[in-house]
């Protein structure tokens, strides 16, 4: 297990290096010079040259990349071109908002998805199953920012039940929770449908397994069989999908955070892209990549915990 964790960690570091290099290359290729952007349209060529030199932009690209790597290793993601604040500080300031949004969105999506998936299996091939199928596909098909817009209009503007923008007052848990409801709903709803379909398919496959026949032959109730025996097997393949889902939830958070003007890594990144604030863009992407890799690795380790067969293969 330990050897496996170390191997996974090594792989993650390798992926990070590739991502960093690719990102640096792409930023290098994008037209627009950070120095002239930073100094504005009235800067003289001498001033620009001086800034370029100070930013290290006159160095060969390889030196720049190595320099960048060195800084990242020391936990330095660079400074904001405009505010001169360290990028890492900015990210850490807003990231909890995005993280909570992601966890709550995926959390309710998982609970609802599992319940609806199980319900579809309990009532398989009935009208309820078909209705759930149509509902799930509709939930998957509507993009999260569209749901966000309509949820905003209905619940915040018309009904005025929930706040339309922001992440709530600092220190006021109640207002933070209220501000979280609509974005989490918008981000999670597509996943409710997706997980419901996934759990249904996975469960139906497991329900055909010989060990389910054994459980039936011993007189277990259908409910105990589904929730006690079949779901435990069916949930394992869902976990890796959930991990990937967490990554895509973070990216759909970019849209939803914009719609709700909610501070988070999504708003940080869109703002930085608009202002050609490259260190912030790069810092955010790098941070998200690292976080995503962490989630995927954690999911694999969780699968190993839940499936004793996988656990033993890793141990052996």
């Amino acid at each position, binding site marked *: 297990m330990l050897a496996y964790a170390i191997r996974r960690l090594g792989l993650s570091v390798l992926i990070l290096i590739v991502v960093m290099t690719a990102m640096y290359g792409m930023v290098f290729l994008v037209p627009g010079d950070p120095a002239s952007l930073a100094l504005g349209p009235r800067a003289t060529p001498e001033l620009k040259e001086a800034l370029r030199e100070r930013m290290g932009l006159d160095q060969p690209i390889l030196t720049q990349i190595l320099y960048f790597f060195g800084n990242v290793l020391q936990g330095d993601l660079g400074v904001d071109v405009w505010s001169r604040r360290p990028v890492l500080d900015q990210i850490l300031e807003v990231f909890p908002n995005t993280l909570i949004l992601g966890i709550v969105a995926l959390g309710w999506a998982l609970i609802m998805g599992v319940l609806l998936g199980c319900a579809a299996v309990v009532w398989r091939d009935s009208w309820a199953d078909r209705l759930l199928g149509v509902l799930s596909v509709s939930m998957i098909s509507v993009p999260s920012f569209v749901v966000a817009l309509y949820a905003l209009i209905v619940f915040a503007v018309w009904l005025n039940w929930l706040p339309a923008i922001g992440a709530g007052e600092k220190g006021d848990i109640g207002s933070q929770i209220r501000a979280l409801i609509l974005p989490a709903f918008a981000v999670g709803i597509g996943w409710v449908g997706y997980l419901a379909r996934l759990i249904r398919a996975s469960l139906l496959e497991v329900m055909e397994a010989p*060990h389910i026949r054994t459980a039936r032959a*011993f*007189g*277990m*109730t259908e409910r*105990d069989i589904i929730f006690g*025996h079949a779901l435990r097997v069916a949930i*394992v393949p869902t976990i890796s999908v959930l991990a990937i889902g967490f990554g895509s939830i973070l990216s759909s958070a970019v849209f939803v955070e914009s719609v709700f003007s909610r501070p988070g890594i999504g708003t940080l990144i869109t703002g930085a892209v608009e202002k050609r604030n490259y260190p912030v863009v790069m810092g955010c992407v790098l941070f998200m990549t690292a976080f995503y890799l962490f989630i995927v690795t954690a999911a694999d380790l969780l699968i190993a915990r839940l499936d*004793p067969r996988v656990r033993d293969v890793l141990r052996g």
Partner: protein
Amino acid sequence: MTAIISVENLSISYRVPGGNLRALRDVSLSVARGEVLGIMGESGCGKSTLAAAMINLLPTGARISAGAVRLAGTDMLRLSPEDQRRLRGRSVAMVFQDPMTAFNPVLTIGRQLADFAGAHDPARAAPAALAAMLGRVGIPDPQRCLDRYPHELSGGMRQRVAIAAALLMQPDVLIADEPTTALDVTMEAQIIHLLRDLRSSFDGAIVIVTHHLGVIAELCDRVAVMYAGQVVEEGPVDSLFHDPRHPYTRALLACDPAVVDPASGRLPAIGGRIPDLTALPEGCAFAPRCGMAQPACASPVPRHHPGPGRSVLCHGAGP
């Protein structure tokens, strides 16, 4: 002797592309308390369908067109699903063919046994009771076995666990569907040995489905030979093995590797194949493969009773 479980005129078919596959035709059997019935025949003759029907856990697509499965008098097939569930595991228990896939891979043995017993009587789901039963079927260190996962046990051990599970509720009827087929020869011998030991302490009826003649000879009191969904011959093991009346039974017995002269260097086989179960003839289904077939074999076959407890379905077996 009164029957504890009896199958009466049971006919079952499967819907398949191109018609109805008639898996069982007018099958009648009964087993009394303390008796062991063996059901034998080649693959595809309806043995496993019959075993599944005795607990009414037929695969989807199966249709019961006629007949009854009576458990102490009540027809199990007519009971509500909930009443059937209450009987399964408690009155009729089953041991499945493949111990590799019969258990849930992500739950411990102890958890599964506890769930099986707990479905009827929580008191029997106590770890001490489970461990005691595992000890009875010859599992060393039963306490530790409870914490193990199925894949950590060998095939033979798993089949022992399956037998222990079936005995947990002290059922009236134990059905074993090819309990030794998936095991290697050493394991098979051990499981046969275990079943023979359990016979003496088990007061219910046992039904063993197998194509292994040795299992029948070792364990059973009576044997029913199946062919193309029918019981073609039935009787006490000794009498039937010494004096088989149906040509199919004779052919089966001649094919047993245990009775073949090794010096001959040849293993006999029954020529031909089992008939298409979607288009069965009106007469004897074995006639196309039978060396003694006569023109009369094309007409419906009568059942003869050549001796005490014996019955045979063949034109040629008449007086």
